[in-house]
């Protein structure tokens, strides 16, 4: 997916979660969004994750826990602690606490920061973690975004399906909720229409005459005028392979037909929220100059920095000096690459890609994200244990996916999977029954 939030709020939240884990040596921090804040209707999405235990398999968030946090009397301040929750981990964790930090934003959004701590928590630490969790979620939330969604003109949606009945149902469903809908009957018309008019979201069928959904999606994603518009594939295909193909061709999501009206609306609203959040993020140039936002940047034009480039880069980033931060992160990454400190190099490239994204330079952001992927590959190849290598390959896959390099994404996933297979087989052989051995 070439254009999937290369340096948007998700990346920033992810980085903040990683910082939190590193600073407090926490086994795991995950940030969940439930939109709308209703277990029945909402979609629980993982927005950020960080762990000190690469390769450990963590359990999924259970509905019971979400319900428990949703039921908090005072969600703004209350923490839900469930010390016994470590049983959900497939690998034993040190005794510690689970913290559910519910954070609401009006009636629209609900975030849930899941923090596991290595030991018992004191009040001071709990308060600090709560503050930091709020900071992460603050990155993801934007009050103005929610207000926009409350008002009329929620968004323009392009619907492409060759079946007039399906178009009629989707149109009816969306217009009743205040969306503006334009519908067309094939992929080519969808692509052409998307080039001519602005849309906030495209819902596209898979099998259509003239041009099918995946081809149209690929064209939409390859065109600079349309590539930022999220595409959701409406499909009767229910095979996993088909869904993977849909995502690989650039779709952000898919909905299996016949869809439930609640699912369709929930997904549409969620994608529009993310889009508006991203737009708000990108429309807030911290350099203060419009020129600095649009000016092209190339690799290799950075002034040398003195001292610790990483620290200075972080400082520059926090002060909104995006170009300076980008230069410093690149310098750090290149130095770490030369020193074969691959994880650090990857992290620096990832940070650089965030700064490039803030400058609206998506080409550079993608280029740098690919470099991060390459660093992860180098890390994997030099890893001394299988679990570490597997984690590094998965990190590489994630970076390549974000950078839109499907070939390397697939290769990295394959390599991670092959290690997983080896690890799965790395068990003691079953005991031979005594009677058999005697024979």
């Amino acid at each position: 997916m070439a254009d999937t939030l290369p340096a948007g709020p998700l990346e920033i939240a992810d980085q903040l979660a990683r910082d939190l884990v590193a600073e407090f040596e926490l086994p795991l921090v995950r940030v969940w969004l439930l939109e709308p804040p209703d277990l029945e209707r909402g979609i629980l999405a993982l927005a950020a994750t960080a762990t000190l235990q690469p390769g450990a398999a963590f359990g999924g968030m259970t509905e019971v826990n979400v319900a428990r946090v949703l039921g908090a009397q005072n969600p703004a301040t209350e923490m839900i602690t469930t010390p016994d929750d470590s049983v959900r981990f497939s690998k034993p964790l040190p005794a510690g606490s689970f913290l559910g930090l519910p954070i609401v934003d009006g009636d629209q959004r609900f975030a849930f920061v899941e923090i596991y701590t290595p030991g018992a928590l004191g009040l001071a630490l709990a308060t600090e973690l709560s503050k930091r969790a709020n900071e992460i979620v603050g990155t993801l939330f934007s009050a103005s975004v929610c207000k926009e969604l409350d008002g009329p003109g929620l968004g323009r949606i392009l619907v492409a399906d060759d079946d007039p009945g399906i178009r009629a149902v989707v149109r009816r469903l969306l217009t009743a909720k205040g969306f503006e809908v334009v519908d067309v009957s094939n992929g080519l018309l969808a692509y052409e229409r998307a080039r001519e008019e602005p849309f906030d979201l495209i819902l596209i069928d898979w099998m259509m005459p003239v041009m099918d959904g995946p081809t149209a999606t690929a064209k939409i994603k390859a065109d600079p005028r349309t590539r930022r518009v999220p595409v959701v594939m409406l499909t009767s295909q229910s095979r996993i392979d088909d869904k993977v193909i849909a995502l690989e061709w650039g779709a952000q999501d898919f909905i299996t037909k016949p869809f439930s009206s609640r699912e369709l609306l929930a997904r549409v609203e969620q994608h529009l929220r993310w889009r508006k959040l991203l737009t708000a993020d990108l429309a807030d140039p911290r350099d203060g100059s419009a020129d600095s936002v649009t000016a092209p940047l190339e690799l290799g034009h950075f002034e040398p920095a003195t001292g610790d480039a990483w620290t200075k880069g972080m400082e520059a980033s926090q002060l909104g000096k995006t170009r300076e931060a980008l230069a410093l992160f690149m310098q750090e990454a290149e130095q770490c690459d030369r020193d074969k400190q691959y994880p650090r190099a990857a992290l620096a490239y990832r940070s650089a890609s965030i700064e490039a994204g803030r400058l609206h330079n998506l080409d550079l952001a993608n280029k740098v994200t690919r470099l991060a992927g390459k660093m992860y590959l180098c890390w994997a190849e030099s890893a001394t244990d299988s679990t570490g290598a597997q984690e590094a390959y998965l990190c590489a896959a994630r970076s390549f996916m974000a950078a839109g390099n499907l070939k390397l994404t697939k290769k990295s996933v394959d390599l991670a999977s092959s290690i997983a297979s080896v690890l799965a087989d790395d068990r003691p052989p079953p005991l031979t029954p005594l009677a058999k051995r005697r024979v």
Partner: protein
Amino acid sequence: MSSNDDTPILAISRLQEIFEDDTAGIADLLDGAMRTATDWEAALGNALAHRAFDDVLWGAHAIMGSAANIGGNEVAAIAGRIESAARAKNWAGVELAINDLSQAYERLRTSVRAYRASLA
């Protein structure tokens, strides 16, 4: 209303949820789907006659989507069987399922007529 194997012939609840009290809108949608169905049935028969797997697959897929959209679950399920058989290049399976499809379509048309009559 349900077929022999208990798959509903016409499950209207999804459309009622979307169209609320606009029963005329639902009726128009059902009529439209039935008209399209006639075209797709003919196309499917033609594809079968020419032993064209791709066209059978295409037609079955379209029928499945269209029927499921109006709650014609029995037809959608049979169209899904045809699609799977076509994907597996299993002519015997395609032919068997297409026979079932004609009968299921007749039951669906009857159900749609009954629904329309209930509105009068």
